[in-house]
């Protein structure tokens, strides 16, 4: 394979993956409105396009043409940088998610559908996930508004308390599979019986809860908490800048759903069909991911918001010790057996 060919293949993969992520983020805004409507006996958006499918496009046009406001006394540079910082990391983390096994078309092996098959994939995700919070903190601070600052403070405190649980639960999976490479983690769970959701049920539950906190989703969305903080960190944002925060949030959800599938649900493995071709594997991956994407929406429209001190208590007093214990037992069992 020549360098040019490799470059071209990587380019196609990148365009496909990033295009899909942005599309999914856009469709998630529609899905959120549709599912919330159905759960409240309503119909939801259905005017733009068939079943309202073009609604995200209409929203996008609206966002672009709306007036952008910058509050007096805001730090102009940071105010502009924050939405970019919020949206970029969650889109970048998707680069290490392996969507399929090796793609073979006409006897030619194109490799797995992944932008960067890093050996330290998990570290990369955690590092960029840590960066994502800068968007929220900077946005809140640069707005020169009390509500925004409160939202930013809450986001940072929440991040610290939940990132730990997230990392410790991921570590338990890493201990089980013996690799930081996401592709190898998937390969360590080839059958439905060997999925890490069965071997690490406690870690799975804690991981899912932590992803909700990590993506600032209900019931842990204190940083935007409308009744208490108006709009939280994005109170002062309008038009496309505001939309950037939302693109960031929805792509973070997409990314976290993918990560959950990779870590606990065997990624692209198809239940009861080990030698499934790559397109079936891709479909299986997408199906599993959409279940978790639906879970994000489902939980949001079912549960009331936690109180901030409840979240802290849950994070530090329950999840952290449990995750540590889980890791200890896992490590002991892996080294003994």
């Amino acid at each position: 394979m020549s360098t040019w060919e490799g470059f071209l293949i990587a380019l196609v993969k990148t365009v496909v993956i990033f295009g899909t992520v942005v599309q999914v983020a856009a469709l998630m805004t529609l899905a959120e409105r549709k599912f919330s409507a159905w759960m409240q006996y309503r119909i939801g958006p259905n005017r733009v396009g068939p079943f309202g499918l073009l609604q995200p496009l209409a929203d996008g046009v609206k966002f672009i043409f709306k007036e952008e406001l910058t509050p007096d006394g805001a730090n102009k540079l940071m105010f502009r940088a924050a939405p970019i910082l919020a949206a970029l990391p969650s889109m970048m983390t998707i680069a290490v998610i392996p969507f399929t096994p090796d793609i073979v078309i006409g006897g030619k092996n194109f490799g797995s559908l992944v932008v960067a098959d890093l050996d330290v994939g998990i570290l990369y995700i955690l590092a960029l996930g840590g960066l994502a919070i800068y968007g929220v903190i900077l946005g809140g601070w640069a707005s020169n508004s009390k509500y925004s600052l409160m939202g930013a403070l809450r986001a940072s405190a929440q991040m610290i308390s939940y990132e730990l649980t997230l990392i410790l639960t991921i570590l338990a999976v890493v201990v089980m599979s013996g690799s930081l490479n996401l592709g190898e983690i998937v390969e360590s769970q080839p059958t439905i019986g060997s999925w890490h959701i069965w071997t690490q049920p406690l870690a799975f539950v804690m991981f899912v809860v932590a992803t909700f906190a990590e993506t600032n989703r209900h019931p842990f969305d204190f940083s935007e908490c409308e009744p208490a903080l108006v709009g939280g960190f994005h109170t002062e944002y309008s038009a496309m800048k505001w939309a950037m925060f939302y693109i960031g949030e929805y792509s973070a959800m997409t990314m976290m759903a993918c990560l959950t599938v990779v870590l606990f649900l065997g990624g692209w493995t198809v239940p009861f069909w080990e030698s499934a071709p790559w397109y079936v594997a891709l479909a299986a991956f997408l199906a599993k991911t959409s279940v978790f994407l639906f879970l994000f929406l489902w939980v949001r429209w079912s549960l009331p918001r936690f109180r901030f001190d409840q979240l802290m208590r849950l994070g530090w007093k329950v999840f952290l010790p449990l995750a540590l214990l889980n890791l200890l037992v896992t490590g002991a069992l892996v080294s003994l057996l």
Partner: protein
Amino acid sequence: MVIVKRKELSLSEKLYIPEVLRGLSITFRKMFEPKITRQYPEEPLIKTDVTRGQPRLVVNENDTIACVSCGLCEAACPAYAITIDGGETDRAIEREPVRFDIDMLRCILCGFCEEACPKDAIYMSDELELADYSREALIYDMDKLKRPKAALQKRIDYVNRINTRWQTPSST
């Protein structure tokens, strides 16, 4: 003073997860229940006998207007929406309006004009939609207000029925 005792949570409630799942199952079931949204422009508004829409003038079967321009509705109108100019006619009632305007932007659809009318000439129709591009267009003149009696019959019957209720002698 009322002392509210905090409910002790059971173990499953303290663990959150079972209760969360219970909540999720409720919202999931609700997704498949019939929707209450009315798709308004396509699905017309629900109208019953009681519907009290915009006031309209009754036109008799022989194409004459029932109004005698007595001005009672004009006086009863709390929003000063009605303007009447009377004129003479060759018919037996001798008077009929030459101008009968209702400013639909002022009208509050209270139905006082209907109650005040001694000649059963103005009724609240079942027409509910009121939208136009200018304020002038929403000052309805007589031509816009005239409706054949048959179109208002449901409301006329309803009002008659309600009125006879007060006419029956009470038991006390």
